[in-house]
């Protein structure tokens, strides 16, 4: 069965959805992502949907599920690049995906993931900001 590739980049996982997904493919992505987060200890997931021409209630639910499941596994999810027509349709459909973080493009999405990772680590180390590099952070965020 075909699958959507998941790339690992540092502490984050990257997915670019480029095909018109049927439902099983979307469910397979949900499974693959959650198991990859658990296996790699990734702290963030970026899903680029800029090539998606529609997001219906099923795909919307899969995106919301991925965000909730990864949050439980301690990874932040950000969905980037939703097209205006898709966003308007999704809202009209009644889905505003309140639990999903969003960004305009991949670059902004990565900034968001880096920022929230930094904030989380500062909190975990009780303000010990100098310890950041212990995690091999190479995010280049100034």
């Amino acid at each position: 069965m075909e699958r959507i590739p998941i790339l690992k980049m540092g502490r984050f996982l990257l997915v670019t959805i480029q095909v018109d997904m049927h439902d099983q493919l979307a469910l397979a992505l949900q499974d693959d992502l959650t198991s990859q987060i658990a296996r790699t200890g990734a702290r963030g997931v970026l899903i680029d949907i800029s090539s998606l021409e529609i997001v219906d209630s099923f795909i919307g639910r899969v995106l919301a599920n991925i965000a909730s499941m990864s949050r439980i596994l301690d990874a932040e999810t950000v969905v980037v690049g939703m097209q205006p027509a898709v966003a308007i349709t999704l809202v009209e459909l009644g889905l505003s995906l309140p639990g999903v973080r969003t960004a305009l493009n991949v670059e902004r999405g990565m900034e968001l993931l880096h920022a929230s990772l930094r904030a989380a680590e500062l909190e975990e180390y009780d303000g010990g900001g100098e310890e950041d590099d212990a995690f091999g952070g190479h995010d280049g965020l100034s």
Partner: protein
Amino acid sequence: MTVSRSDVRPIRTEAEVVAARQAVRSWAVEMKFSLIDQTKLVTAASELARNALNYGGGGQMRMEILERSPRQGLRLTFEDQGPGIADVEQALRDGFTTGSGMGLGLGGSRRLVDEFEIHSAPGEGTRVTVVKWR
């Protein structure tokens, strides 16, 4: 009002659901619908085709181009021979689901089109007709 073109697509597998919505997209592009209206139509088609497959055990989609000068419309009719719906009003309410969706399929797709009609009764299958005017 006349029908200037029509076609029927099967909806028996998930791949046919994808093919059906691609057919709706290509007709909507040909009819010069705006991008937003194309997206709304394809999304509604996706919801209704999924319903026909998942709850109706499969069926078909009829596509028709309507002419009512100066406007053109695309009419989609989804039919299945499934168990049917006992309470149509309830099924149209947001949040109603008997399956795996978010319960926005019927009520949500009604908001994406200009005309929406549903005929269903227990044991008689379900027929949903939607029209979007350009």
